[in-house]
């Protein structure tokens, strides 16, 4: 099962490599990983998505917690949560295709953020599934380049991951 784990960790050099190292060392998968500083300069927040059964996820969270740099973590998929991913995508757009692609972008509530005579650069946010669905809609043949940010997530409601 796909899980989204949010980790608050010390904003120390090497902290990221400890987390990434843990995954490769113990043979866990990382589907995506994002990390950046938070409003508290001493902390950074990482969101990672991984795939595993309950036993594996339990081991992953236990081992993450064991890292000295990890302050707190939560498996967002255990409760109601919001996940978003940003995608920038360049597609071939010329002639009749231009209108078709514009319509498709509107349907997916994306934005065309750069234009050339033959190419649209599109920005799209949403769940990972939605972004993947956009590929299919546009068709592989038209896609020139894709960059995805990886998943960021946050719990719904009053629940807060903080100190």
């Amino acid at each position: 099962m796909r899980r989204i784990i949010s980790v608050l960790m010390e904003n120390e050099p090497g902290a990221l490599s400890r987390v990434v190292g843990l995954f490769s060392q113990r043979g866990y998968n990382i589907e995506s990983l994002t990390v950046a500083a938070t409003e508290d300069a001493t902390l950074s927040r990482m969101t990672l998505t991984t795939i595993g059964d309950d036993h594996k996820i339990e081991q992953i969270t236990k081992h993450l917690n064991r890292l000295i740099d990890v302050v707190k973590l939560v498996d967002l998929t255990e409760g109601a949560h919001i996940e978003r991913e940003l995608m920038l995508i360049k597609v071939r757009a010329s002639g009749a295709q231009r209108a078709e692609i514009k319509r498709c972008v509107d349907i997916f509530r994306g934005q065309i953020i750069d234009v050339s005579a033959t190419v649209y650069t599109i920005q799209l946010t949403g769940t990972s599934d939605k972004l993947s669905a956009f590929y299919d809609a546009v068709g592989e043949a038209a896609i020139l380049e894709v960059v995805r940010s990886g998943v960021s997530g946050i719990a719904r409601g009053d629940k807060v991951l903080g100190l």
Partner: protein
Amino acid sequence: MELLSGGDMLMRALADEGVECIFGYPGGAALHIYDALFRQDKIKHILVRHEQAATHAADAFSRSTGKIGVVLVTSGPGATNAITGIATAYMDSIPMVVISGQVASERIGEDAFQETDMVGISRPIVKHSFLVKDARDIPAIIKKAFYIAGTGRPGPVVVDIPKDITSPATTFEYHYPDKVKLRSYTPAQRGHTGQIKKAVQLLLQAKRPIIYAGGGVIQGNASPQLIELARKLNAPVTNTLMGLGAYPATDRQFVGMLGMHGTVEANYAMHHSDVILAVGARFDDRVTNTTSKFCPSAKIIHIDIDPASISKTVPADVPIVGPVESVLNEMLENLKHADEKQDAAALQEWWSQIEEWRSRYGLLVKPRYIAGDKIMPQEVISTLWEVTKGDAYITSDVGQHQMFAAQYYPFDKPRRWINSGGLGTMGFGLPAAMGVQYAFRDATVACVTGEGSIQMCIQELSTCKQYNLPVKIICLNNQALGMVKQWQDMQYSSRYSESLYEDSLPDFVKLMDAYGHVGIRVTKREELKSKMEECFAMKDKTVFMDIHVEPKEHVYPMHIAPNGSMRDMWLNKTERT
């Protein structure tokens, strides 16, 4: 406030932490530190002959004393040579602080002379590591390093210090912190009361209980509590390889070591039990054999300081996260007030079953080897036990001799059996014996080894000379890599691929002479005991006993793998359970 250089601050911080000795080896990036060491007199330094030995010696210093061993090495090759010892300590959860010199801050990343990314290279085998970026941070980092190494599930911590940080050119105000607080690190202080109650109930209801105790009991100083609990419950006790000595081996309730080369009675008792109390043990693959077939009718109570150890390979029914000492104390307290009574008849029956297994298979009741003219390796260990009156510190290398020592030297006290259990590091024994002997100057310290393992760190004979460390090296010389050969016998139709070297072994007696020590060769069985007595009578000498043992001997019992359960064992070359 006093002004000190980075190097002086490091030495002062170590002294303030209570460090008495450091095992190490100097080199370019560590020279400021070594100069600071020279200019103080609180901390002693033991100069080894290879950095690997420094880590093993400090590790064994930790294992035998319960204090935290300290290592000091230089950058690059000094640091990488220390890696094997750090991994050894990590696998066995041994607290240790390793200080490594690093190239100057502004050279980092330039592939400078003797540069290696120590923090990176050691990352998977340390509990934590620090790269010092500002000399002012040294006292706080040292405080944190010792705190992290010694609390919770102990482990090695690396402190990598660039050369400019320890330079005598700049001085700083020195203040050693009294306390350390890490928001991201709060090891459990006690177990969950409800779970502890549940565990006690389960144990009282048990008809066939067994206590399976590991190295955590020794690290957690919980032997007295373990003994008291075992006596109160009248339950059989088995120890892991790492746990030997946690429960007195000559006690009636002790059924021997369990696992791959454990006793039949211990493995049978585990397999047939209905409640297992696992204390500070981690269900290692060398214990469980095939996990899906592990102890089919047992409910498992698992006490461990590390939540990640619980339900890792075998699911626990009653998990208890906490320090073993505090959890066992609380269990004892609970037991006093429990209404439930044990089923005395069932327990009686359980014990007669165990006694029956013991009388049929017990190692010490009926030795599994046939004594003839040749010296049997098992007999060497039994003789060692007799001659040292069962009261020596025994370190060991890795291989057949290690298993024979674990099987045939009953340890009655914790911290007496010092071996590389998790990583299985050949070369561990001699430097480990040095670390123990340095900690206990008057104690009898023996290193049980083989002619293979001893050659992996044999250069340390020179260190023994320099610091007058009268360790006794008991070498079970079978002229081959015995354990490799045993597996080749059992699984590869005796094709001895690269496990033989008999024509090129050194003359150990002459070698000892060259190092200024004493060498004794034993080839005749009738001389074994007298020569060994002679060896241990030389209290202030480092002595090497080159004992030529039967080369064809295998270690038994032995788990049948793959796909075997705890009770599936080879009893000898032809019989199985």
